[in-house]
């Protein structure tokens, strides 16, 4: 993992939830213009006893403890009015704050998308570069919780499609901490996607300030048999697949783009030039997806290096079903990744 600021001496084991919480705390300590907004990010607003305490700290506890340190003027509970508070975050970003707004589940983007893609993303351009919108929207993605059709999507492809937005999908606690710090310090609007099934995943995380720059992919495992590009939770699935394949002497390279816009195509292409084979693993629906985006980019820019057709391992073109058997079928599996890699060999 690239560390821009002087590499911190020590690391310790944190969960993704703790790593994100720590990044928020450090950035809020570092910059008084950073504020948090969202439904129940503290919780219990105006309830006696909760003046300086949180009732929830976010629906899954990611922002817990921050209102105690920063108070309710910097950790704002909101009404269920995503357009109003995310639009307010855009307006505040254009006038001197660095808001971190939480869209509880990405599946809710349909009630506030205008403020994201038409206002926040385009304001700078439409104003001829005479304004900036240093905004972060944190949002939960992913299937696997039995949350069904309106609480389990990914859809980062939709935001990556939109000019003016940056999109970030961390796959480890350390990346989550460093990428969130970079996103908050970035002067453009950033969508930060957190997979709800990864909050309890643990890993080594540097202490203190650490920043992972946007637009830099990370090779999570080196290999020369095939390049497997995976995002978010799918990175760990790809690494599991790599283990299984290694058992048969097949060494795959697992590349995590980490940011989808901007996309570090150089690192992806370098890997494909080396391996000659591409598998993209994406939990999102298949049409007009990151999977097709990356496959098309590689087909165009590394055509002569490709020794086999690219393979895409994605969710099907269906909403997310409720019953566990169907939901597990919906989510790309390690088996499917292994099979896709074999198909390229």
């Amino acid at each position, binding site marked *: 993992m690239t560390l821009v600021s002087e590499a911190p001496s020590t690391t310790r084991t944190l969960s993704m939830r703790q790593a994100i919480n720590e990044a928020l705390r450090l950035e809020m300590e570092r910059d008084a213009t950073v504020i948090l907004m969202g439904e129940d990010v503290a919780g219990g607003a105006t309830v006696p006893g909760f003046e300086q305490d949180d009732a929830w700290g976010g629906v899954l506890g990611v922002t817990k403890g921050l209102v105690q340190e920063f108070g309710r003027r910097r950790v704002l509970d909101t009404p269920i009015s995503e357009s109003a508070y995310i639009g307010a975050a855009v307006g505040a970003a254009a006038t001197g704050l660095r808001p971190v707004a939480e869209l509880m589940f990405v599946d809710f983007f349909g009630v506030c998308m205008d403020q994201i893609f038409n206002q926040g993303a385009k304001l700078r351009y439409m104003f001829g570069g005479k304004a900036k919108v240093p905004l972060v929207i944190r949002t939960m993605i992913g299937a696997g919780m039995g949350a*069904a059709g309106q609480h389990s999507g990914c859809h980062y492809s939709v935001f990556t499609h939109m000019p003016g937005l940056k999109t970030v999908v961390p796959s480890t606690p350390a990346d989550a901490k460093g990428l969130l710090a970079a996103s908050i310090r970035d002067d453009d609007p950033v969508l930060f996607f957190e997979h709800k099934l990864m909050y309890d995943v643990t890993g080594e995380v540097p202490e203190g300030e650490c920043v992972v720059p946007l637009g830099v992919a990370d090779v999570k495992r080196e290999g020369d048999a095939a390049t497997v590009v995976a995002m978010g939770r799918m990175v760990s699935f790809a690494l599991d697949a790599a283990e299984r394949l290694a058992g048969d002497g097949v060494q795959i390279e697992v590349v995590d783009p980490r940011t989808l816009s901007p996309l570090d195509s150089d690192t992806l292409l370098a890997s494909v030039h080396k391996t000659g084979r591409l598998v993209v693993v994406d939990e999102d629906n298949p049409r007009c997806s990151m999977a097709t985006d990356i496959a098309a980019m590689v087909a165009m820019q590394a055509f002569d290096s490709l020794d086999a057709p690219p393979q895409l391992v994605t969710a099907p073109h269906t909403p997310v079903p409720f*019953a566990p058997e169907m939901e597990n079928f919906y989510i790309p599996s390690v088996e499917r990744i292994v099979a896709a890699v074999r198909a390229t060999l």
Partner: protein
Amino acid sequence: MELTRDTALWIYDRMTMIRVFEERVAKLFAEGRIPGFVHLYAGEEAVAVGVCANLTDDDYITSTHRGHGHCIAKGVDPGPMMAELFGRVDGSCKGKGGSMHIADVSKGMLGANGIVGGGPPLACGAALASQTLGTNAVTVCFFGDGAAEQGTTHEAMNIAGVWKLPVVFVAENNGFAESTPVGYHCAASTIADRASSYAIPGVTVDGYDVVAVYEAAAEAVARARRGDGPSLIEAKTWRYFGHFEGDQVTYRTAEQSAAYREHDPLTYFATQAVERGVLGRDDIDAADRRAVSTVDAAVAFGEASPHPRPEDALTDVYVSYPREEVRS
């Protein structure tokens, strides 16, 4: 209390059915036998039942994430409901929807909704269809106090007013949106008054008094059937459980909850009905027993129902579509 014995029986029967159903779901969820998010309706029974006592199977309702009570009040069969919560093929939605999307269009129940404020526009649509097709069906739109701050709710009440749609908007004000009190998220802290923004009638009723709800709804439903347009009813209520199962409910005090349990809508109605001789104690006991056996049967039905096949995930996306396309 003007209720006939039949109506009173029906009302108590549905209220106790919802209560028993929800308490069982809480137990099953705690035992890990129900996946996903579950939002329970216990404590709010008088609202769904008092309103739906004025509806027929031809009428429509739209619901919320807290939809089990609305289903039962609208006549959805608890068996398929429980099977749906278990994620089985005999579930109301064949295991594809779960608690947050439980629905039965054949009963006019247009679905629980995972999106706060998702229902009001849909309700206007069902009402528009009835108006256009000349049926005299009415649509009831249940929504929470938190949903009142969603833009869709405002737009829907206005367009219903513009088109004089046969809709009754029922705000279930249980005091909280997750852990956020209505006194914070609602600048005016009253929802009924918003009716004036749309030139429609707006009333506040005690959502713990099923008869009060029944009477307010009767007037609003009649108005809609007459073609005089929409109304807004705010029912003050309280949920017995947390926002969803797993919520520690730190934001409410034991005193508050106790105070509400004091006036439990079921006991209150039962006592009144018996005192006034509309129902006998035995009617109440029989209804309670019926509810337990119905829910027992529902659980048995749900457990007996087969699990879906994994690849069933690929069906029901479209009425017609080249099959391979839905595969990844």
